[in-house]
């Protein structure tokens, strides 16, 4: 028996169920987020990820800054930062367009925490990095291209 396949099937239906519950309004997306957002992290493309995060099509904003190197020699460790001067930011997410799964991390910021986070991510190849922020309930995005000379996703 192929155990991995079982797990995939099981988790797949779990995510679908969560989606159904959210659609039916039984649980709001905000509450669903309290658990790891499997749908968003499993989504492959940018569009699917944005949909799973409930972001739709975010507007580009100059008030969101993505920081990182122009060229990353080692794709396994790419320092990335997101900062924004927009008001009431409750969520920040880092997406990497060409990774197998676009979403790298989401940060939920309670009131009092500044919209200024830094972390390190893996990049499989040269790609655009997107910073998504939620300000006053609306989503905004900024992008930066990082060139990778050595991929960090195995292979």
């Amino acid at each position, binding site marked *: 028996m192929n155990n991995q396949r079982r797990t995939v099937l099981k988790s797949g239906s779990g995510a679908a169920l969560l989606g159904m519950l959210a659609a039916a309004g039984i649980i709001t997306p905000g509450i669903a987020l309290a658990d790891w957002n499997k749908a968003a992290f499993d989504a492959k493309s940018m569009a699917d990820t944005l949909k799973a995060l409930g972001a739709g099509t975010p507007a580009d904003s100059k008030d969101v800054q993505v920081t990182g190197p122009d060229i990353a020699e080692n794709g396994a460790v790419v320092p990335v930062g997101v900062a924004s001067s927009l008001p009431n930011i409750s969520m920040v997410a880092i997406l990497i367009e060409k990774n197998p799964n676009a979403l790298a*991390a989401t940060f939920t910021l309670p009131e009092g925490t500044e919209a200024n986070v830094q972390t390190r991510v893996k990049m499989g190849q040269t790609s655009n990095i997107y910073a998504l922020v939620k300000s006053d309930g609306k989503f905004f995005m900024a992008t930066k291209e990082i060139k990778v000379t050595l991929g960090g996703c195995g292979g």
Partner: protein
Amino acid sequence: MGNPMKIRAANKDGVTEVKVLVSHEMETGQRKDAAGAVVPAWFITELVARHGDKTVLSTEFGPSVSKNPYLAFKFKGGSKGDKITVSWKDNKGDSRSDEATIG
């Protein structure tokens, strides 16, 4: 239980900056070992930082966060001697919590 996290928290002008270095493999599930078998995914899914009882940051990670994840953020408030607690859990159900004092 993984190895201890390194946590630094410093208060300057009423804003506390917290830097966390977690010790974790962060295996993506994309890699193959020498025999060609896929190395199963093993990564931190959630990390929460608290100042006293108040949550100051909650994050969700995917496998594309680097090995031994680094995280830095700032929040308003906090004073010298206050406790910062950071806890994480991974997709295998393992978890860990560490404390630091704001300096």
